[in-house]
């Protein structure tokens, strides 16, 4: 019996390490507080919440401690998403999940709650919801806190199913759904990539 739990714990730790490698700290120089971000491409594409990068200049700190200036590729304040670019290569990146997670699925949230470095918390998807302005949310039984914003919510396969965004109660939080994130990135990249670069 204890064997399975031990293995599950070991896998969980591996999963957290994989997700943590692609987690960055995001801040605005001179502004109070920090947020989180997710590396989605080895060459420096980073996804975060729009409310994390409300000013400039923006800096990003990688897990190896390297601090880099970031440029905003696109920002959607309503959907609370922002795409950033840092000048780097060979970064560990996470993949976006193909579909929304089912209620009851296990998830891991990575971020910097209250500034704590790269904290992980484990929970389940409690439900999916859309609000009155059409934003899609993944609801979780996790205690998201300031600093978690913009960090990855990953499924059991280590793919991003949401962008941790708000605490909705003492024990609950909501992440922008991977579906909204995909649509946002598609718009942003279409604007920025020249046909030659896209090929």
């Amino acid at each position: 019996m204890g064997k399975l739990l031990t293995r599950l714990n070991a896998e969980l730790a591996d999963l957290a390490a994989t997700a943590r490698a692609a987690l960055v700290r995001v801040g605005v120089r001179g502004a109070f507080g920090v947020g989180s971000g997710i590396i989605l491409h080895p060459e420096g594409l980073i996804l975060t919440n729009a409310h994390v990068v409300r000013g400039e200049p923006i800096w990003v700190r990688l897990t190896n401690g390297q601090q880099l200036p970031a440029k905003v590729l696109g920002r959607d304040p309503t959907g609370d998403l922002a795409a950033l670019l840092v000048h780097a290569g060979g970064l560990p990146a996470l993949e976006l999940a193909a579909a929304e997670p089912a209620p009851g699925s296990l998830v891991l949230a990575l971020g910097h709650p209250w500034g704590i470095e790269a904290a992980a918390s484990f929970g389940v998807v409690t439900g999916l919801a859309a609000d009155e302005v059409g934003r899609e949310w993944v609801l979780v039984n996790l205690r998201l806190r300031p600093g978690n914003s913009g960090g990855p919510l990953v499924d059991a396969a280590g793919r991003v199913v949401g962008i941790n965004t708000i605490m909705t109660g003492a024990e609950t939080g909501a992440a922008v759904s991977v579906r909204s994130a995909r649509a946002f990135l598609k718009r942003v990249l279409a604007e920025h990539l020249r046909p030659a670069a896209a090929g």
Partner: protein
Amino acid sequence: MFDRIKALSDELAALVQTAGESIVRVSARPHFGASGIIWSADGVIVTAEHVIEREDRIEVGLPDGRTVGARLVGRDPTTDLALIRAETADLKAARFGGLENLKVGHIVVAVARPGPELQATLGIVSAIGGPWRALPGGQLDNYLQTDVAMYPGFSGGALVAADGSVVGLNTSALARGVSVAVPANTLSRVVETLLTHGRIRRAYLGIASQPVRLPDAVRERVGRGMGLIVVSVETGSPADRAGLTVGDVIIAVGDQPVSRPDELLAQLTADRIGQPLTLRVLRGGQPAELTVIPAERS
């Protein structure tokens, strides 16, 4: 790479989907939805009593997306259970299971339908015990506590064990600060009674009481430290007719010593209705016996 977590996660999601086929949304209060568990395919649904704030215009949201009307069959505030009948007859009844195979530490899932969509959360069994009297006064056959967080609208939903069986009904009204579920054996007992009688019969005396420390001399004589002092007697009630007055201290009901209001409540079962019952009291410090004939609580 993460095969076991992935397998566990997929199983949990599948468990929620399957259990969710027997979980409905119950709309009988303003602002908040609530959940219900399909008891039988012909439309009988068990839910939490405290979410039924209106008895007319009860709406039920079915797993297939349809919304149908429902009427109240009966309610038992003491166990926080209510039974409603939906105007439909092609439902999938939940598969209920006992607590025999459930242990402290086992993983459980709460499945609910606060709105049109299914919701779920995860936890473990924190405590299992024997018979327990809930905050509103009802007797549960077992105490079943989990660390599952009760979100808005989760009351009336199912507590599901890893084998997919519904082991309890979740409600936030039975205890303060902890998640306690009504176990399936109690559900079964209350549902059968509500289906047959439309209500839960309880005996009633017509008094309010509170625990009181007995004087030392009396303590030695009766061998107990506490009694129940009568703080009000309803006019015309069984207690009033038996001559019980404010200030009397009840120390036993029949052969059973009582020193807390819930111990008194536990004695007022349906079979006591209309049957002479001896109350041992202290009146002015002196022992006395009174015979009361409990009535049925309306």
